[in-house]
């Protein structure tokens, strides 16, 4: 019991330490890569509240897109400081989530998933067609670099630390939510929603809240992405990215908070050589299939599984003393 609590703590402490030291060891390329990995971690982890409630959201990248475009346009056209434009982007993503979720969350299972798929395509098309605002398929460029309290973060190192800080802060909030009563309510809805309802849970309200919280943080991730890459291209935030976010959760494992984090880090790093090429889709499909076949609980169950194998082998092997 105790070991189960300490192992993740040690792992995350080592992870954070390595992340803090990375600028000392790695080149700018690695800083760039890991800043994107951290963005993916935020996206994956922010899908979790909805997933825990049993809602399959295949439109998460649509909310990221809203955060990205809102923040980019506010900063570029109206000169908003980074902090404010990021917050506006995230808030708009949450507000849209409330508007979409209010009718859609009454649907269950696959019907809700279909609405989110339609949503992500609608958002992509809006970004593509609304040329005067978003520059459509020529892409939105010239987005200002992120800044903190008026100081522009020009170096890759400072932007990397910003990504790290945002990720850690968001993970902390999400973890706090999940380990509180609210997280318990989400879990109960996911396990048996009619039972939760008969025990006094307003399931419509809580599903909506979980959905909006997740989309808020997707908006934050999008806003950071916009100011970090400084170029937005509508098809990037399409259905494919939304399914990738989902795959991070499934491959990492849905049974634990660490699942989406592990999944996002593992898959983003492994798929890096294929980024943007058709092989990326193939890679993600294979990862998903392998997980379903061999590790239904996801990567986070791998240590326990290996431990079990070792133990069994040791038990069946003839004792060396005899």
């Amino acid at each position, binding site marked *: 019991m105790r070991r189960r609590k300490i192992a993740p703590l040690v792992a995350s402490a080592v992870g954070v330490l390595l992340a803090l030291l990375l600028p000392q060891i790695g080149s700018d390329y690695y800083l760039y890569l890991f800043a994107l990995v951290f963005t993916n971690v935020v996206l994956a982890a922010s899908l979790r509240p909805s997933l825990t409630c049993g809602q399959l959201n295949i439109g998460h990248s649509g909310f990221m897109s809203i955060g990205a475009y809102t923040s980019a346009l506010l900063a570029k056209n109206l000169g908003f400081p980074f902090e404010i434009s990021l917050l506006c982007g995230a808030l708009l993503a949450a507000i849209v989530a409330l508007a979409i979720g209010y009718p859609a969350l009454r649907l269950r299972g696959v019907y809700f998933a279909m609405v989110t798929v339609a949503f992500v395509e609608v958002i992509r098309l809006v970004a593509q067609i609304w040329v005067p605002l978003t520059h459509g398929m020529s892409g939105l460029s010239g987005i200002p670099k992120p800044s903190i309290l008026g100081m522009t973060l020009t170096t890759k190192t400072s932007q990397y630390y910003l990504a790290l800080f945002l990720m850690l802060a968001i993970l902390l909030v999400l973890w706090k939510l999940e380990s509180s009563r609210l997280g318990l309510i989400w879990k109960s809805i996911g*396990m048996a929603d009619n*039972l939760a309802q008969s025990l006094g849970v307003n399931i419509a309200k809580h599903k909506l809240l979980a959905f909006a919280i997740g989309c808020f943080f997707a908006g934050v991730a999008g806003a950071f992405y916009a100011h970090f890459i400084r170029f937005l291209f509508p098809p990037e935030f399409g259905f494919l990215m939304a399914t990738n976010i989902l795959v991070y959760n499934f491959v990492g494992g849905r049974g634990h908070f660490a699942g989406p984090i592990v999944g996002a880090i593992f898959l983003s790093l492994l798929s890096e050589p294929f980024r943007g090429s058709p092989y990326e889709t193939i890679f993600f499909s294979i990862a998903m299939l392998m997980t379903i076949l061999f590790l239904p609980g996801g990567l986070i169950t791998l240590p326990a599984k290996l431990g079990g194998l070792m133990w069994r082998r040791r038990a069946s092997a003839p004792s060396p003393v005899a």
Partner: protein
Amino acid sequence: MPLLEGRNLSKHFGGLAAVNGLDLTVETGEIVGLIGPNGAGKTTCFNLLSGFLRPTSGSVGFAGEDITGRRPHQIVACGLVRTFQLATLFQELTALENVLLGLHLHSRMGLRQVLFSRRVFPPDEVSLSHEVLEFTGLASHADQLARNLPHGYQRVLGIAMALAARPRLLLLDEPVTGMNLSESAQVMSLIKKIRDGGTTILLVEHNMKAVMGTCDRIVVLNFGRKLAEGTPAVVSTSAEVIEAYLGAGLHHA
């Protein structure tokens, strides 16, 4: 004044009247049984009373308040709690955690508690849950996963969770279905114990022996209408009831 009062309740599914003009009252401290052949509208009636379905017409009154059209979680807050026909439990949690959730889910909380409370379950709730398990005879199974419990215990756990929500009226949907004689006798004596503790009970059940031995009053439904009502002795000798269950005799043919 009755604790629960359904007035002229109807529920139509398309052309089918699952419940049709039903009047139903439950007095405080009673155990009332709702029986009837398959498809008589018993479960629909339960769903209407607990807010899982909205009646097509008619009204539901509880403790002097009109609760027609309220949503399930609001009705639970009034003190009317139901269980489900199948063993609906949080399967991946232990028996104790299930009861804790029953206690817990309806308690209010602020943002501060959400973000800064260190414990999910306060110690007083834990001890209260142990009491509920003790009361229902599940104390020795507190740490077993719900899905590993035998069927009979799963059903009792469902009742324990509902009890944890501190109901004034408990609606039990087929509490002893699929149980053997001794299990069902145990559950029935538990139900009496719950009533003696001050909770009024309305139950749906197929098991005639269990119903007859436990209920103070029985309401018989057939085709969505009330066929008969009265003490077990009166109902079990009613010609209409016997006909509904066993079919019309030859002389009607």
